[in-house]
């Protein structure tokens, strides 16, 4: 039995070049496997990632995370090599419960935005309150950036570290939007 199944390496639409306007690092994320899970009840966990966390929070770590986006919707991110593993353990963890687990690895593109003024940069196009009280570390939600829909995740840590997840066809728009927004930080 072949334990490791191979996946075709994906090209990264944004490349790997990091932009650093005003000390905020805008870095296209490496290829990652992502899944959308829909299930009605929040009991149990999937591959060690809990389902019962409050809506609009993320748990896990930077490599393996699960964000609850709605009452019955989760977005899961794992390293690319673990994609098959996650599907296998989901099948056993959720056995007998009606659910849907969709691989959206090729649909989503991640951009990491890090730095002390990252929230200012994001607020150029995101109408959410990203203050410490309203959007603390561990928050995650679907929202808008400019004209594009994104999933915004705030990683753990005192220094603001955000992950912007968008659809692949919006990726160049979102990336350019962030880079351009960085040019305006500290002005006016």
């Amino acid at each position: 039995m072949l334990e490791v199944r191979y996946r075709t390496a994906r090209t990264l639409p944004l490349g790997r070049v990091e932009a650093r306007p005003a000390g905020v690092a805008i870095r296209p994320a490496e290829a990652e496997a992502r899944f959308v899970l829909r299930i009605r009840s929040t009991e149990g966990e999937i591959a060690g990632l809990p389902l019962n966390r409050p809506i609009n929070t993320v748990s896990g770590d930077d490599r393996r995370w699960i964000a609850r986006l709605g009452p019955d919707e989760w977005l899961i991110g794992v390293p690319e090599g673990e994609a098959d593993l996650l599907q296998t353990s989901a099948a056993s963890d959720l056995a007998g419960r009606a659910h849907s687990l969709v691989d959206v690895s090729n649909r989503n593109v991640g951009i990491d935005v890090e730095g002390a003024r990252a929230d200012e940069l994001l607020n150029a196009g995101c109408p959410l309150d990203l203050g410490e009280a309203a959007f603390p570390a561990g928050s995650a939600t679907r929202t808008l950036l400019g004209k594009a829909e994104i999933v915004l995740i705030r990683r753990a840590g005192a220094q603001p570290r955000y992950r912007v997840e968008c659809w692949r066809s919006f990726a160049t728009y979102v990336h350019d939007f962030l880079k351009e927004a960085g040019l305006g930080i500290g002005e006016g």
Partner: protein
Amino acid sequence: MLLIACPYCGNRPETEFRCGGQAHIARPEQPGALDDQNWSEYLFVRKNPRGVHAERWNHAHGCGRWFNALRDTVTDRFIETYPMGERPRSEQGGATAPAATSDIQSEARA
């Protein structure tokens, strides 16, 4: 910025939402028994009040869920939001009896 209180996500900016028109419209149980007049009223005729209006809203760019809202069409103030299949709190205990929501198909499904 206008904030709308999603029953699942809390206060969120208006641009994340879409309005779905008048709320609490029950589909007739026997559409075949209706005459054209009543059927077209069910399909097309909506209230357009100047004042408090019950509407369906969708948190399209957020949790994606539908909910109901009472909104004042004059001031654009949201009086309250409540989940699908429920009646507004301000109405409960009032003169209007809450409708049996289970026979409202569109709401039971949500």
